[in-house]
């Protein structure tokens, strides 16, 4: 996906004025907030579980090499193959290599953010292989040639009208005047369309929510069951996973799953949770003949041991973006990269560089709501601040901001001078706003006054008044 992160401000402006998008975003609260809150309230040990989740991930990251080796050995023992890929290029080549070797013409795909990170669909198409998205949200995005706007609800930015319109346009073999009475009808039509594709696919590609070291398994959770068909029907199953998906044991995975569903959709458990271990064994009723894991690094191992390591705990539940007041206003596409919202604001600069994605960690009020709902307690605001520090160190912060900061810092370090400057400032502003108690316009303050008035100060500073009062009392000022 081509990043438009540098244009975040412009993207955001457009998003705010996009009525359809705003209508779709208004669903965030009913669809996610209440459900999560209820699910959390229904599990008294949820807070403790968050600590457990954080600790499991921290432990795994601290011994990642060990668990990766154990996991890889177990994958191979079960007849699978691991493809270690340092970069997105490596991973694309690995996937294409497998597909070409088995002569694949169609590839079905379950939902996978790594797939987006790799831009695998475009890559396969360029080489004459047809990828077919089987997740309902991804399916419509493929029809519309749009990237996802949300990490668990990829088509969250669309309204029902958009769905109907796209289906009518794409499924021209069906009667044009058919009526979609309810959401179900859309689902049914998509299912009918996909059924034949499932059976024709030579390769099935899925993501992985977790990799389990002790068994060599990969785990996916879905609510549509499309992932199961994607990975069991074709002869070859490719799992796209990044290395931080690792957990040590099945028991750890269970704990993480309890956190994931509640944080993501407010379910106690997702409808389908599927563990895949290696290839079909003798006597197995189904399963692939080949099982590959394309294991992507793409900058992640470089985060180990840095101030960004905690970000690798992320289990992609989307709670942070669902609860982010900025995401809720601008939607996912404005971020201009694969991962939106607070987690994306931390992750994207590692993927495309903070010089490209600098707006993302800056476009936060540090309200902390993301951190307060994150199931693995990632200190997201702190990490965004770390990106701002890197920007500042590398002189990427805009010159005007630096100059203002330097000036302000110079004065604020000198309380005496500060008293003088603030007295003048407060006095002037207070005088300007004395009649109405506020200002509607002010030079150099357009950012503030475009959408709101500037309340006028009382006029005197606290310290000036306090000094006067102390003198009046005969005290020392």
């Amino acid at each position: 996906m081509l990043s438009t992160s540098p244009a975040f401000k412009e993207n955001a402006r457009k998003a705010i004025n996009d009525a359809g998008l705003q209508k779709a975003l208004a669903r965030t609260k009913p669809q996610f907030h209440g459900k999560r809150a209820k699910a959390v309230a229904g599990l008294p040990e949820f807070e403790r579980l968050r600590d457990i989740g954080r600790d499991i991930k921290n432990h795994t990251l601290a011994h990642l090499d060990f668990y990766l080796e154990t996991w890889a050995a177990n994958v191979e023992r079960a007849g699978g193959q691991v493809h270690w890929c340092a970069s997105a290029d490596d991973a694309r080549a690995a996937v294409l290599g497998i597909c070409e070797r088995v002569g694949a013409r169609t590839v079905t795909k379950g939902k996978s953010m790594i797939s987006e990170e790799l831009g695998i669909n475009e890559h396969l198409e360029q080489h004459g292989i047809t990828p077919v998205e089987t997740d309902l949200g991804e399916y419509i995005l493929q029809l519309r040639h749009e990237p996802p706007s949300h990490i668990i609800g990829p088509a969250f930015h669309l309204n029902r009208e958009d769905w109907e319109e796209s289906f009518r346009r794409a499924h021209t073999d069906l009667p044009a005047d058919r009526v979609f009475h309810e959401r179900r009808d859309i689902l049914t039509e998509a299912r009918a369309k996909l059924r034949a594709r499932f059976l024709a696919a030579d390769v099935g590609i899925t993501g992985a929510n977790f990799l389990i070291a002790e068994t060599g398994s990969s785990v996916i959770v879905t609510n549509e069951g499309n992932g199961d068909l994607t990975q069991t029907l074709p002869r070859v199953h490719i799992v796209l996973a990044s290395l931080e998906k690792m957990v040590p044991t099945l028991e750890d995975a269970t704990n993480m799953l309890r956190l994931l569903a509640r944080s993501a959709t407010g379910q106690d458990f997702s409808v389908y949770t599927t563990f895949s271990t290696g290839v079909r064994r003798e006597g197995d009723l189904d399963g692939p003949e080949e099982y590959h894991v394309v294991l992507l690094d793409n900058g992640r191992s470089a985060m180990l041991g840095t101030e960004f390591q905690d970000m690798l705990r992320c289990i992609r539940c989307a709670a942070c973006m669902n609860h982010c007041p900025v995401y809720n206003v601008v939607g996912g596409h404005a971020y201009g990269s694969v991962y939106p919202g607070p987690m994306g604001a931390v992750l994207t600069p590692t993927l495309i560089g903070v010089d490209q994605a600098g707006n993302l960690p800056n476009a936060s009020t540090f309200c902390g709501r993301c951190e307060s709902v994150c199931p693995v307690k990632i200190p997201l605001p702190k990490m965004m601040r770390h990106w701002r520090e890197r920007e500042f160190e590398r002189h990427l912060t805009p010159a005007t901001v630096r100059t203002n900061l330097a000036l302000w810092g110079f004065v604020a370090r000198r309380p005496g001078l500060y008293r003088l400057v603030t007295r003048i400032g407060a006095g002037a502003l207070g005088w300007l706003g004395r009649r109405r108690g506020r200002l509607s316009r002010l030079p150099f303050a357009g950012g503030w006054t475009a959408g709101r008035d500037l309340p006028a100060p009382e006029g005197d500073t606290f310290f000036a008044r306090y000094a006067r009062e102390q003198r009046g009392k005969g005290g020392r000022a």
Partner: protein
Amino acid sequence: MLQASPRVALFVTCLVDLHRPTVGFAAIRLLEQAGCQVEVPRAQTCCGQPAYNSGDRDTARDLALGILEAFGGYDYIVVPSGSCGGMLRHHLPTLFEDDPNLRARAEALAARTYELVSFLTDVMGLERVAGAASGTVTYHDSCSGLRELGIKAQPRRLLEALGVTVKEMADPDVCCGFGGTFCVKYPEISTRMVSDKSADIAATGAETVLAGDLGCLLNIAGRLKREGSAVKVRHVAEVLAGMTGAVPPIGEAG
């Protein structure tokens, strides 16, 4: 151990100093009524958040050093802001990671720092403050106060004990869009956020909106007044200290 009459240093905050001194005097009154000896160290300016949150750790650290100097010898440091309170309590020590000595000093200072309202209730054990008030208010939970310092029930309790009716917003805990420099760096997003907030406030039908942070209040008042709303905006300390007569609501003329 709580001393009978603790020595409290007031951290005025730059916004209160510059914009609304009455909040500082309200804080002094409330603290004195609670039995504290209040002092206002003169060598204070700002908690350093504008620098800290812009990635300029050096400036933030310099200011933090000044704070360590000015606020060293007190039993408590009290701040009429959840945001600056959170800065002193949670972030100041992180600026001295390379210096165990200073770090220890910063941690000791952090442990003695409280936001005003929660100090009155949680440290001084106040169930109510002097005076009486009436009317309906709605309370905006400023983000740092709520999520860094756990301030939620305390101001509501004190307000209700005064006789005020608190009408809750649908989302009192959602950010108003101020965010320090955020509001001028991303004005469209910030304006949209504060518009949602003002709609939520209006829907309560309350006469007044209160909060414990002047940054949020300036933002909220700025939007409400731009929309022509009659809802009054005040810092919670003004109401608790019975000083609403001393100054018109934020953004209104006397």
